[in-house]
């Protein structure tokens, strides 16, 4: 027969966890009892009533388990490459951007710069001044990438002629989309819109896109989730370090690119361009994570975060159990390392949909797998190890496929729980690139950032109102 109370009274030497008064933990240690002390702190201010309501919601435990199970089970295969007008029904004159919705007046420099570049690229204006005037006059429509099941790094601006990777989650019958990566330096996603930026976009549209499309359609689909799992064991974290992932992706794409119906010069340039870009894979990892978080979205009663995204002005989150609502706060400015002569004053507040990687359990959450990244984003290796381990406090589960060798192959912390964030005050750790504050500058550095804390109590209140 089972002993009552799970055998509490027959335990040889019961082990005790404590929270609150330290004296009690000390008194137990004085009796040579095994004690695990929580470093307990009060939750975020003014959240007690909402916490009690949400934690008392009988649906929550199962809802979160469901959301997490879907998130970790979602597949991600690269199945197609198409122009945005075909893939997303993106009409001429409409532009997608990163982060939560925002109007022109409140946009930061890099987002404005990227939109100017996209207007020029689409041939909707003759020069930057004209483009800016038209944008400010409200002649074009803006919409978050997330509203069309897409994601875009940094400014994340997508226009109808741009080519998009199409990833499919067979398990949940879903597609997500992401633009092609332009490489580093002066690029549209960092707000640069000079002639070399627009010229490159045209080349990508005319040459690179069709070659990639042929490669994927002929030799694909390619399992992106499997590459993610492998690259974490090769020193990448999938957000700011994508070296192994980019090489593995190229290995998959090469045969189809080389045999594509295009001139050998164009093929050579497409291959060179793809191989030279160490963030080539980022634009595949992001939609893969988007598929995972989409799968977890829409579970009634679930407090799991399914979107974290920034537009350079606001940080926004969406939560599985609160539908399409965004909960926003002012975007923080990353701290980290700067390129060349740039310094903290040159950096724009946090921008981009790439925090979808952290939302899906990689990026900053897998930092322990990528100790070399501290040379790029700042911090030290001990910090990288601790950052991942700290995230277990605010996540629902440990990813069954994404594993961290140095943590004894522990799964990455996956499925951010709004309740845990509010209770502990621990904010999700995001690794990110830094855009220049002034439109047209481009990338100025890379670093570490956290969401605006106020997003989480706001999301909690919305969850509480739905109990």
């Amino acid at each position, binding site marked *: 027969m089972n002993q009552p*109370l799970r055998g509490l009274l027959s335990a040889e030497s019961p082990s005790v*966890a*404590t*929270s*609150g008064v330290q004296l009690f933990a000390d008194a137990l240690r004085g009796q040579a009892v095994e004690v695990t002390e*929580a*470093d307990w702190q*009060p939750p975020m201010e003014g959240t*007690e009533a909402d916490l009690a309501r949400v934690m008392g919601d009988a649906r929550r435990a199962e809802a979160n388990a469901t959301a997490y199970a879907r998130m970790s089970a979602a597949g991600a295969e690269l199945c197609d490459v198409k122009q945005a007008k075909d893939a997303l029904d993106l009409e001429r004159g409409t532009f997608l951007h990163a982060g939560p919705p925002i109007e022109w007046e409140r946009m930061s420099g890099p987002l404005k710069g990227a939109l100017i570049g996209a207007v020029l690229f689409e041939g909707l204006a003759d020069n930057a001044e004209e483009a800016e005037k038209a944008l400010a006059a409200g002649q074009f429509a803006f919409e978050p990438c997330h509203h069309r099941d897409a994601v875009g790094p940094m400014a994340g601006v997508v226009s109808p002629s741009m080519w998009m990777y199409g990833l499919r989650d067979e398990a949940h019958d879903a597609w997500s989309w992401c633009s092609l990566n332009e490489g580093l330096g002066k690029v549209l996603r960092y707000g640069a819109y000079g002639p070399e930026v627009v010229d490159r976009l045209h080349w990508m549209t005319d040459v690179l896109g069709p070659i990639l499309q042929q490669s994927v359609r002929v030799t694909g689909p390619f399992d992106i989730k499997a590459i993610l799992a492998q690259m974490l064991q090769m020193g990448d974290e999938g957000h700011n370090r994508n070296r192994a992932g980019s090489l593995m992706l190229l290995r998959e794409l090469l045969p189809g690119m080389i045999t594509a119906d295009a001139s050998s010069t164009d093929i050579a340039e497409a291959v060179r361009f793809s191989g030279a870009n160490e963030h080539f894979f980022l634009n595949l990892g992001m939609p893969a994570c988007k598929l995972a978080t989409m799968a977890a979205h829409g579970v009634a009663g679930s407090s799991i975060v399914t979107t974290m995204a920034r537009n350079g002005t606001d940080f926004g989150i969406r939560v599985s159990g609160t539908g399409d609502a965004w909960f926003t706060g002012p975007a923080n400015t990353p701290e980290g390392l700067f390129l060349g002569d740039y310094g903290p004053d040159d950096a724009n507040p946090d921008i981009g949909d790439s925090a979808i990687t952290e939302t899906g359990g990689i990026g900053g959450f897998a930092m322990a797998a990528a100790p070399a990244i501290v040379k790029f984003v700042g911090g030290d290796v001990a910090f990288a190890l601790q950052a991942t381990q700290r995230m277990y406090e605010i996540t629902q589960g440990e990813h069954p496929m994404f594993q961290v060798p140095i943590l004894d192959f522990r799964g990455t912390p996956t499925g951010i729980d709004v309740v845990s964030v509010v209770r502990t005050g621990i904010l999700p750790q995001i690794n990110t690139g830094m855009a220049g504050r002034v439109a047209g500058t481009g990338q100025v550095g890379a670093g570490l950032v956290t969401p605006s804390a106020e997003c989480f109590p706001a999301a909690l209140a919305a969850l509480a109102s739905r109990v």
Partner: protein
Amino acid sequence: MTVTQVDVRKGAYHDSVTLLQVSRTMGETAGVEAAQVAMATELNVEVLTGMGFDIPDTAGPNDLVVAVRAADDEAVAAGVAAADAALTATSRAPGGGFGDAPPPRTTASAVRAGGAEIAMISVPGRFATTEALDAIGAGASVMLFSDNVSVEDEVLLKDAAAAADVLVMGPDCGTAVIGGVALGFANVVDAGPIGMVAASGTGAQQIMCLLDAAGVGISHCLGVGGRDLKSAVGGRSTRQALAALAADDATTSIVVVSKPPDEEVLADLESYAGGLGLPVHWATLGAGRPDLTSALEAVLRAEGRDVPGWPKWLSDNDPEPGSVSGSLRGLFCGGTLADEAMLLAAEELGDIRSNIPLRDDLALGSDLRSDGHVVIDFGDDGLTQGRAHPMIDPTLRMERISAEAADPTCGVLLLDLVLGYGAHQDPAGELADAIRAAKDTARADGRELPVVVSLTGTEGDPQGLTRTALTLAAAGASVFLSNRDATRHALSFLGGDR
């Protein structure tokens, strides 16, 4: 000329016991006249204001106030520096090794990290339900020391615990002993055949100490929280605890200790206990029911054991019995001991005013003052918000002892002192000084003030029963292990005009 400084540190949380130590360290700095480091709860702001500090309205319960009044700017700076050093010293060091995991941040996370069977929660009451619910979800039994938890939340927690086959001990549970491990306030006693279920912390300590004096040990003592035997809770934890002890090989009989229970709950439990197959004894206080000592004496007889003479240490300068005019003033840290003293005293004295009154119309006002018979429980919820329990922080009671000494309507002072794990490490010296000062004050006013101490402890306790008793007796107090005997002794002084 003095300098006053008040710092409010937003969102810097520390527990009340730690802050008590920090306040003391700060107060001992040269040149510092008054110092208090506390979370800005309503009660603490009141105390700080009473100390002459001006606390800004913006300070909330999650903010730390560092208040100091000192001779000059340098002494203020030295005091604040001492407080900062003490705060730093108490902060938990992060993991020792390179890149080790940071410490767990919630109770449930600590339960999972340590594979703990028991979660001991002493966070402020308004956060306690959340932590406890989560720990239950992680599969641990919970000892909930926190008070100021609503009865609705208590029922919610206990139902969740029953569903998960774990036990909620509490809220406001100060005492448990499980498998020889003392949780919270508990005395050092031998292992033995008696299992205890306690809806009362100091009541449980009184019983285990009397058992110890009778040479009988305990198997386990499971706390259930002081309201468990009220109808609103319906004995939910008591039932689970009885079943667990009945199934335990080391336990041959059970004693249930409780503050005054609701009759129908007690009746239900008695009938439930009748089917458990081992003797269950009841030491449940209440009008017309035996006091704890008498109940335990009956248990010992029923178990076929000898009832010893309970230890006492009498003062040699007490006044004659019946010679004292004025009223009974009982100043307690233990709620059950206060309850028991009131029940015994009411039989002889009639109405007794209290912050935990036997009848609602006997409640004291917020100043806790009355010219008549008064018993105060300084451990009650209303007096512990944002403060450590008086068994750890005796400040409020010490202040009241000296106020009573100066009050001509105070005829006899009845105090309790509880030893053991969790309690003040050397409470006797400080209390003896207060007793001596009280007697001197009264004497200067032409009165002889008898002081009686109900001392709950064992020789095995870190503070030592006899050592503590002798220190108090040397200060002029009469000391009793039995709270009943202490109360009766106090009552014996009061004269006919009471």
